């Protein structure tokens, strides 16, 4: 009796503390699209069928564990064969499977129908960021940008401690993927290096981003809002640090956003033609470096021994400019060092190279202008 009371006490304690825990989640959420709701529906159905089967099977087992004990004087029967029973428990599960397969097939066929989209977006996985390109298919817009985690310091033990462990920790990006609501959007998903997987649970979409191949999926998001996901396929050291953030906007807000992006692009093009001061280059370079390069080469420029080379004092970052430019533009094939020529504009490239040549005691005094980058491309 007292044992029972203790157990009850323990359970209520657990329940109570479960309630006091912040923000945890036990089950899948239905999400906002027809797929995620379909997935939730079938998940719930199959789970409850399993629970029901479990109750029967485990119930029978518990019954015999309690009642058919030798210590209670149970004597073994000779029950070791029964064709009827064996047929029953082959056929009944088979029927149950059919009951599951029918809705599963219906939901799946709906998901795979990518016909007649209103708009397409190409998503490319990079080690370790996403590129979103609106310049494809129907309603193409000349917009393309990278989406990086906002806290590169979180990626290393030595600097992680300084990053606030708040609600944004590891889930915030500098530029969100912006989409209009109530439009059928086709997603074209691929990769620049290794396999990644683009996943937003609230949409029920998880698709591998495979280098050299393009996968398709689609979404139609009814409600404006922010939707978060993550890369779901192991893609190297910083696989845990490539969040996905999607902002769904009403059509009017979406159009306003498109216009603002075009304005930004025009300004960037203008800045590529002007001559920059060293201070401006260094300031811009530090920003670019932190979002794009620090994941590998470290904020301190020290790299990671045997994995990512140090840029601090490196022969390339302190040697001839042309070689430095070349490696950043074209990368080193077969290594994690990507070709950044297609990823960044002339001004950002000029800034980051200038920064690398003058930061951390690499006092070369060199300055690289956007025009130099343009000439070297």
């Amino acid at each position, binding site marked *: 009796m007292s044992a029972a009371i203790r157990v009850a006490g323990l359970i209520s304690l657990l329940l109570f503390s479960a309630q006091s825990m912040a923000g945890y989640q036990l089950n899948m959420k239905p999400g906002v699209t027809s797929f995620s709701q379909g997935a939730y529906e079938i998940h719930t159905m199959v789970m409850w069928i399993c629970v029901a089967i*479990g109750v029967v099977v485990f119930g029978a087992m518990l019954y015999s564990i309690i009642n058919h004990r030798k210590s209670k004087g149970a004597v073994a029967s000779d029950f070791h064969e029964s064709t009827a029973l064996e047929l029953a428990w082959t056929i009944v599960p088979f029927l149950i499977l059919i009951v599951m397969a029918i809705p*599963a097939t219906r939901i799946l066929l709906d998901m795979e129908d990518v016909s007649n989209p209103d708009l397409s977006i190409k998503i490319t996985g990079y080690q370790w960021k996403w590129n979103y390109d609106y310049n494809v298919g129907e309603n193409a817009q000349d917009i393309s940008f990278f989406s990086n985690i906002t806290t590169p310091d979180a990626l290393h033990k030595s600097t992680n401690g300084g990053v606030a462990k708040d609600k944004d920790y*590891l889930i915030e990006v500098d530029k969100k993927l912006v989409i209009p609501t109530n439009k059928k959007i086709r997603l074209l998903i691929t990769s620049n290096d290794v396999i990644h997987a683009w996943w937003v649970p609230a949409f029920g979409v998880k698709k591998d981003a495979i280098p050299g191949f393009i996968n398709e999926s689609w979404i139609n998001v009814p409600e404006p809002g922010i939707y978060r996901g993550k890369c779901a396929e192991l893609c190297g050291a910083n696989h845990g640090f490539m969040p996905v953030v999607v902002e769904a906007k009403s059509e009017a807000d979406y159009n306003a956003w498109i216009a603002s992006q075009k304005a930004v692009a025009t300004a960037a093009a203008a800045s590529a033609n002007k001559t920059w001061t060293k201070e401006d280059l260094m300031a811009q370079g530090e920003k670019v470096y932190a979002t794009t390069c620090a994941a590998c080469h470290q904020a301190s420029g020290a790299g990671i021994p045997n994995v990512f080379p140090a840029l601090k004092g490196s022969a390339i970052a302190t040697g001839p400019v042309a070689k430095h430019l070349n490696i950043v533009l074209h990368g080193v094939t077969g290594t994690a060092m990507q070709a950044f020529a297609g990823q960044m504009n002339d001004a950002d490239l000029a800034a980051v190279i200038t920064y690398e040549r003058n930061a951390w005691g690499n006092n070369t005094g060199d300055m690289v202008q956007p025009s130099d980058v343009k000439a070297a491309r």
Partner: protein
Amino acid sequence: MSAVIEEHHDHHDHKPTGIGRWLFSTNHKDIGTMYLWFSFIMFFIGGALALVIRAELFEPGLQFVEPELFNQLTTLHGLIMVFGVIMPAFVGLANWMIPMMIGAPDMALPRMNNWSFWLLPGAFGLLIASLVMSLMGMGSAPNFGWTFYAPLSTTYGPASTDYFIFSVHMMGISSIMGAINIIATIMNMRAPGMTYMKMPIFVWTWFITAYLLIAVMPVLAGVVTMMLTDRHFGTSFFNAAGGGDPVLFQHVFWFFGHPEVYIMILPSFGIISQIVPTFARKKIFGYSSMVYATASIAFLSFIVWAHHMFTTGMPVAGELFFMYATMLIAVPTGVKVFNWVSTMWRGSLSFETPMLFAIAFIFLFTIGGFTGLMLCIVPADFQYHDTYFVVAHFHYVLVTGAAFGIMAGVYYWIPKWTGNMYDETLGKWHFWLSVISVNVLFFPMHFLGLAGMPRRIPDYSLQFAEFNAVASIGAFVFGFTQLIFLYNVIKTARGKTSVKATSQVWEGAEGLEWTLPSPAPFHSFTTPPQVK
């Protein structure tokens, strides 16, 4: 000639001594012992890596290891547990028990037996050396997960990938030779009167497993060889830029990989099918349907591989085929569970440690089977895939399935091996602490996966903090509890327990192995017993 051989056999019961006994052993019991100890040591190494992983994941933030090292730890943990713990333990049990169960003196191919064991320390030495070198700052150990998907393992793989490839080749050769030996033994060395349909279920499950091994280990060898030539000899099997396809890698890998998961469970099915009748004091329910179910599972395991690849963008017809085929596996698996439950039904049950582990196996493996069924539903798998839900699924089938089966088998047979009864009190402590902590460890992972936590990440956002902390606590309790097991085994082997085992050992046990004295003689059956 045959007279000479017989004469030789007559003086054979004194064992060779010293290190030579082990290095040059051709004896099924000594080799079985070496396999089991090898597996046990690997269990503690793989377990130590897991505890570092769980320590890192105890709370958000990076506390102990850098992300690069984290990936190496998960990779080595997976490889060691799959190839270094579960598989060698099964081969060890097969070595010990199959000759005794079928009434044979030894394995059919004793020298090959020696070689197939002694390849393993080399293979794992190489693999573990790569981690040691990484810790000493000399390059990275394999860091692409135990599934080593291209191009992460080819174009982007660290230099140690070549060690890994060589190591996998050695493991593969070892497994294939072990499997050939088991098939040869079962086909040729059964006692007179032991027809196939009279073989103990453990022998049957291993017989089928051995065929699976012979069918798929060459596929694994093929895929690592393709990696090797992609890395060094200019081929492009898995490189789209050269006309290959990274997804081809996954097809080849999982064509090996899915049968492999059954290689890791069928022998445990066999062990449970030996133990449950003994402690229910009743014949196994539905012997022949057990055999047919095992064979159907083995067959189906060849046509479901792409259920690991639903998110790669297969044609919808492919997704449907692999979903339906995978669902079918639930039918024979269900038959096995129903048969075990019916064996217990109206039996005369007692609950010694082997039976406790067997019962836990039936409960918890079934939970893993349920989540397996959920995973094969494609639209839902899009949400589960590559999350902690999958991690929970395969740990239920592998830890509380395969590994609990092995532990049950060790407790069940160790009196026969050593002639001493193990310490039942310690066995019960080991059981209860394990069964509670393993659920504290793995059950919350279902919630984490459903809430959206991807697998193989060194750090996570705050909404996952609570259940990760709970899982880590469970991990440490589970890990340290295994020291009780180690202690109990050593104590029994050294004869420090008070009770000597009889030849029967368990009141309800049936089968040829229980007709031999405990400890079993060095050469099991020198004259074949007659089976009626």
